[in-house]
C-alpha cells in the first residue's frame, strides 16, 4: 500500500507560533473513537479553534480561523507534537490539507507518525524558523525534498534540512515501512531461530 509521493512543496504557510504543541491539542482524545483513518481534519486543534466546542463559534484569534493565512505548510515553534503517541494527530494535520510541518524541533513519536503518512516534517534552525515567522501572510515557502532544502521565496534565504536517506527514498517514491518489513520476512525468520 504505497503512500502519496512527496517531492517539491511550494505553498503559502500557516504560522502557529507556539512552543510545546502537544498531540492532545492537535486532536483531543474524545475524537479518537473512530476505527478508520479518515475525517480527523475537521477536529484539528478543535479546542483552540472553537468556543465551547461549538463549530458556529470560531475563536477569532486562532490562526486556522484567520483567512489571511492559508496553504499546505504548517509552521510551528519548537517541540511540536509532544505527548501522546496518537497517530490521529498526523492524520488530522494531513486530512486538513497540510503536506509538511516545519519546526525547529519535533517530538520523536510524532515525527515517525508523520513520516509514516507521507506528511513531511522539516526541522530548521531556530534562526531560520524566526525568519519564517517574520514573513507576511502572502509569503510562500518552497520545500525541495530531493535537495533537502527549504527556501523563503521572497528573500531567497535557504536552509538545508536532515532526513535519513532511507526515509527520503520512501517519501520520494511513496514506499512505506511495512512493505519493506514484509519483504524482510526471510531475515526475520532467520533471526527468530537464534533469538
Amino acid at each position, binding site marked *: 500500500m504505497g503512500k502519496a509521493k512527496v517531492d517539491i512543496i511550494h505553498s503559502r504557510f500557516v504560522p502557529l507560533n507556539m512552543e510545546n504543541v*502537544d498531540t492532545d491539542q492537535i486532536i483531543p482524545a474524545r475524537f479518537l473513537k473512530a476505527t478508520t483513518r479518515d475525517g480527523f481534519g475537521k477536529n484539528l486543534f478543535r479546542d483552540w479553534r472553537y468556543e465551547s466546542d461549538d463549530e458556529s463559534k470560531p475563536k477569532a484569534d486562532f490562526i486556522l480561523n484567520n483567512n489571511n493565512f492559508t496553504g499546505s505548510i504548517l509552521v510551528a515553534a519548537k517541540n511540536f507534537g509532544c505527548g501522546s503517541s496518537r497517530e490521529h494527530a498526523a492524520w488530522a494535520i494531513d486530512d486538513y490539507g497540510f503536506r509538511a510541518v516545519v519546526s525547529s524541533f519535533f517530538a520523536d513519536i510524532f515525527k515517525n507518525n508523520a513520516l509514516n503518512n507521507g506528511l513531511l516534517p522539516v526541522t530548521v534552525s531556530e534562526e531560520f524558523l524566526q525568519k519564517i515567522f517574520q514573513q507576511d501572510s502572502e509569503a510562500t515557502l518552497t520545500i525541495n525534498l530531493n535537495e533537502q532544502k527549504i527556501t523563503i521565496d521572497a528573500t531567497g534565504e535557504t536552509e538545508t534540512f536532515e532526513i535519513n536517506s532511507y526515509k527520503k527514498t520512501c517519501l520520494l517514491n511513496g514506499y512505506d515501512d511495512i512493505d519493506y518489513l514484509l519483504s524482510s520476512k526471510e531475515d526475520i525468520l532467520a533471526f527468530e531461530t537464534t533469538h
Partner: protein
Amino acid sequence: MYSLSLLIGLEIDFMSKTLFEKIWAKHIVKTIEDGPSVLYIDTHFIHEVTSPQAFNGLNKRGIKVFRPKQTVATADHNVPTLNQHLPIKEELSRMQVEALIKNCAEHAVDLYGLGHPFQGIVHVIGPELGITQPGMTIVCGDSHTSTHGAFGAIAFGIGTSEVEMVLATQCLLQTKPKLMRINVEGALNKGVVSKDIVLYILSKISASGATGYAVEFAGSAIRSLSMEARMTICNMSIEMGGRCGLIAPDETTFNYIQGREFAPPDGDEWNKKMAAWKQLHTDSDAIFDKEYHFDAADIQPMITYGTNPGMGIGITENIPTTETINDTDRSGLSKSLAYMGLHQGEAIKGKKVDYVFIGSCTNSRIEDLRMVASFVQGKQKASDVEVWIVPGSKQVEKQAKEEGIDKIFEAAGFQLRQPGCSACLGMNEDKIPAGKYCISTSNRNFEGRQGAGARTLLASPLTAAAAAITGVVTDVRELLN
C-alpha cells in the same frame, strides 16, 4: 573503548556498553545502510484506541498477525469505571471496544477485556502478570509504554502504522536514539515519593529535555525504590520527550517478577533467565551522550502549575514569573497561567481544589492505593471535593478489597471505581468539568487533557490525598506524624 579484529576474522569486542545498547544489540535483525535498523519486538501490547486501523490495514493486505502469541490486548482507554457489567453507553466507545474483541478473535490474539480478571490499564497489567521482563523489547500504541522500562527493558510508544508493522512482522524500523543517564543519589525526604522525583527532574530538564534520547535512571535513590515506584518514573520519561526510560534490573526486579502468572517457572527456566538478566547493567566505563546528577535531598513534594509536565515546583514554592522561569517555558507561561487561572509569583499552596483523581498508568498500582489508604485512615475528605480512586487493574481492585483498603476509602468519602484510564485523558465518561481544578496523579496537565477546559495539577498520590482531606493544595508533610 576499542575493538580488536584478529586476522582469523574473529572479532573480540572490548567495548563497554550501556544497558540500552546491550538490549538493542540483541534485537537487531539487520541495519539498512545510512538508515534505520530492523528491530525485533518481543512483546506487543494493544488496546482499543490505537489498534483498529492497524487491523484494518492487515485485513486489506489479506494477512494475519505474524506472531499472535507475542501480542497481548486489553480494553482500558475507552471503558467506563462504573457499572462495567453493563453495555458501554456511548456508541462510538462501544464500537471501538467491540472492534477489539472481533479483531483479537479473528487474529488469535489473547484479549483481557472487560469482565476478565486480568483486565486493566495496559501498563499496569503487563508487569503485574509477569509478561514484562528484563532485556525485552516492548512496544504499544501508547506513549506511556516507557513504563515497562522499569524492568530493564527497551519499551516505547508507537503510532498506529507501527502497530500494523509489528502485527504483520513482529518488527519495526528504528533509528538508535542518543543515550542519557539521570542519576539521583541519596535518601528521600519525608513525604517525598517517586512521583516527586520525576516531577522534579522534569522541572529541571523541561518537557523536551530528553527528546531524542533513551534515558537510564540510576543512582542510590532510584535503586532504593520498589518496582511500582520505578514504574512511575519510567512512565513519565516520555514527558521529558525521552524515547524510552529504563532502570537496570536487580533483586527488587527479580523478586517482583518471580511467581507471577506469566513469569518463567521456577527451576531451570527461571535460573537460566536470571543468569541472563544479571548481565543487564551499564558497564562502569560506558559513555552516555548526556548525563545529569541530582541530589534526592533537594526534592520536596512537587506539584505542577502550568500546562506541560515540566512546569512544576516544590509545594512550598511560588509560581515562577517571566523573570524567574527557565528559558524553555518562558514563552508559554502567560498562556499557561491564563488557562489555569493562576498568576505569576503567587503561592500554589492553599489553592482550592474541586476534584482529586488518584489513578492512571502512572499511579494506580496496589502500592499507590496502600500509600493513600494508610494516609487517609481515620480522616474524612473535605465536603466540597470529589475524590475518585481508580485502580489500574482488576487484580489491583481485588487486592485492595482483600486488604480492606476499600473500606478505608469508603469511610473517608472517597469513591473507589473500576479499572481503566479514567480521568487521565478526557476520552471516556470520566471527565473534569471546564474551569474546575483537579489534583491528579496522572501524567499530563495539557490543556483539556482531563476534559475541555479542565485544569490539572499533577502531584503524587500522597499530595493528592492531602488535598482530598483539606480541600486545598496542601504540603502533605504538615499532616504526617
